């Protein structure tokens, strides 16, 4: 049992999956000898060789398409996009083919593929290295979308994603790739792909978040606790399918909810969650659901980036608004 950081847990899950199942392949840019620009595939090339860990030519538009071909043939490709900002070029293949192959052929061909990408801002990287558009992926029928927010969840969810018989997009919050560590047992045990995780219990308020923003959300919860307000904190983790039941049960109890995500506000996953709460929870809501999100602007370069991402102050302000709502 070792203390691992999130990216190490990703690496461990990849290594475990590759060791257990030689249909698992890793493909992407710089995933080979370099081990990925974030080292998520470090050592895999050395251990499994160039026929299982493939550096692809720089052509994102075909990565997922190559994956579709491999997957249809029974392989389990894990395709890395170096940054989510460069996954736009892969959306055509994801939406038009990966997500549809099973349905199109009535199950004759299937697409057990995982698409991994580091996502989100806050690492002082250049432009287009901070995208966070999980909602776009969640809107596409036939895809599962997963975002781990801790090393253990990264390990278990990635194993589950690789084992899943259908395409899964696995987004890794790179801001906390190395900052969050915990003990991870390499037991090969997957986590369910359709469950939110309640990571802090509380009765006064529900805070819903995922990815790196969960860190600020937890800090906010601590601050609120200092004021005697006990917040329940839910890590959504599986963006799609969305475990509405867990969120709903919490909000029915607390009556108040703040959703935190760093993606832009309009048509983000926060909207979907808030809408479901409104659909189902109108009778129990004591205050309008608040969304603390990235703004509907272009994420600024690094000088202003910290003001774009939800911070503890904004979360607290929203929490106070829902608390004080008469």
């Amino acid at each position, binding site marked *: 049992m070792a203390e691992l950081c999130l990216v190490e847990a990703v690496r461990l899950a990849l290594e475990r999956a590759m060791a257990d199942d030689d249909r698992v392949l890793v493909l992407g840019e710089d995933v080979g000898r370099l081990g990925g620009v974030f080292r998520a595939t470090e050592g895999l090339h050395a251990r499994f060789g160039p026929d299982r860990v493939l550096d692809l030519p720089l052509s994102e538009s075909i990565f997922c398409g190559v994956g*579709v071909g491999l997957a249809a043939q029974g392989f389990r490709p894990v395709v890395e996009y170096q940054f989510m900002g460069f996954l736009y070029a892969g959306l055509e293949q994801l939406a038009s083919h990966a997500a549809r192959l099973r349905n199109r*052929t009535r199950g004759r061909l299937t697409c057990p593929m995982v698409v991994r990408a580091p996502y989100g801002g806050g690492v002082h990287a250049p432009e287009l290295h901070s995208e966070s558009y999980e909602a776009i992926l969640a809107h596409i029928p036939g895809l599962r979308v997963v975002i781990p927010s801790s090393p253990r969840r990264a390990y278990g969810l990635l194993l589950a994603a690789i084992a899943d018989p259908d395409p899964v997009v696995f987004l890794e919050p790179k801001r906390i790739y190395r900052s969050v560590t915990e003990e991870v047992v390499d037991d090969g045990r997957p986590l369910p792909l359709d469950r939110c995780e309640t990571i802090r219990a509380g009765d006064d308020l529900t805070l819903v978040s995922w990815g790196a923003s969960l860190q600020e959300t937890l800090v906010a919860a601590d601050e609120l606790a200092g004021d005697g307000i006990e917040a329940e904190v839910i890590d959504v983790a599986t963006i799609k399918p969305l475990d509405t039941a867990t969120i709903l049960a919490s909000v029915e109890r607390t009556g108040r909810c703040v959703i935190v995500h760093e993606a832009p506000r309009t048509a983000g996953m926060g909207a979907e969650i808030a809408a479901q709460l409104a659909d189902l929870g109108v009778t129990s809501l004591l205050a309008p659901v608040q969304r603390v999100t990235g703004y509907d602007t272009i994420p600024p370069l690094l000088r202003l980036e910290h003001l774009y991402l939800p911070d503890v102050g904004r979360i607290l302000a929203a929490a106070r608004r829902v608390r004080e709502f008469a």
Partner: protein
Amino acid sequence: MTSGTPWGTEVARFDVKRYGCLDADGTARGPLPDFAHDRDRLTALYRAMLLTRVFDEKAVALQRTGRLGTFPSSLGQEAVAVGLGAAMRPDDILVPSFREQGAQFWRGVRPLDLLLYWGGDEQGSNFGGPVEDFPICVPVGTQAAHAAGVALALQLRGEQRAVVCVVGDGATSRGDVNAAMNFAGVRRLPVVFVANNNQWAISVRRTAQTAAETLAQKAVAAGIGGEQVDGNDVIAVVARVEAALERARSGTGPTLLEALTYRLADHTTADDASRYRADGELSAQWRLDPVARLRAHLISAIGWQSDDEQRLLSECRDAIDAAAETYLAATPPEPTEMFDYLHATLPEPVRHQLDDLLANVARNERGHHDG
């Protein structure tokens, strides 16, 4: 002061060849490949081309009478599809575009399957026979990446099999087609790309797609072999695809084979080509009709008679009529099918939507508000 320019040396050189066996009137230009001396083989090729033509006619007729969706005829291009289908081994894998019915039939997809497909039932892509073959691909050119992926799978498993991927002339402008060929080149994947150059992409002429003199030379960018073949000459198509497949299987690398043919039909039943193309062009191209050419060759080479022709034609018509009847009598898909293949198991949250669908179906059956 002397003036000069940088000193240049040639560092690479390429050429593109065009291959053919039969002249437009069906005469052999020289010694033919072995298989072309086999009467059964020749008539099988002819039958497949005729069957395709009869199928296309029937499908267009069904569409015109509201019993089929939009349909792309392959009229005039039968030799490309049949030729590549015939060149493949059964365990090779076809990754088609949407106009290769001739190849699909050869490989065991039934006319019924394609009628179901174009009639709007996904079961049409759940064909038996070549179960590893890809289904028809609608987004132009996107199948090239699949072909590379499938070929990579074959290569990784060390199998002696290869992939044939078909793209149109229009599709060769798609960046991902170029990227897929490039990747295939890097790994010397066992794949043959056939550019089915029917001279048109809907209303856009081949010459408006690219300034390249040939489509075959797109291979140069990918570092793979490229050549042209007379796509109205089924014997040449079979021979060149076979040779390319041989290279693919033996690890010599991929090939881009440009098959020169012509779309004698409208783009699809939704199109009216007379809006953009001159009658004269069409009638000139009819003189290169691949079916007539092979028939002419059969007459001179194996003494094909008009009896033989009639027998074969009615055999094809019967087969296609029977398929059409089965198609028209087929039970429509169950509404719930739209949820059955979303994932291996339906996620809980979507179950509510399935319930909603069922409630709506029930409402509709009670006769209310049929949208």
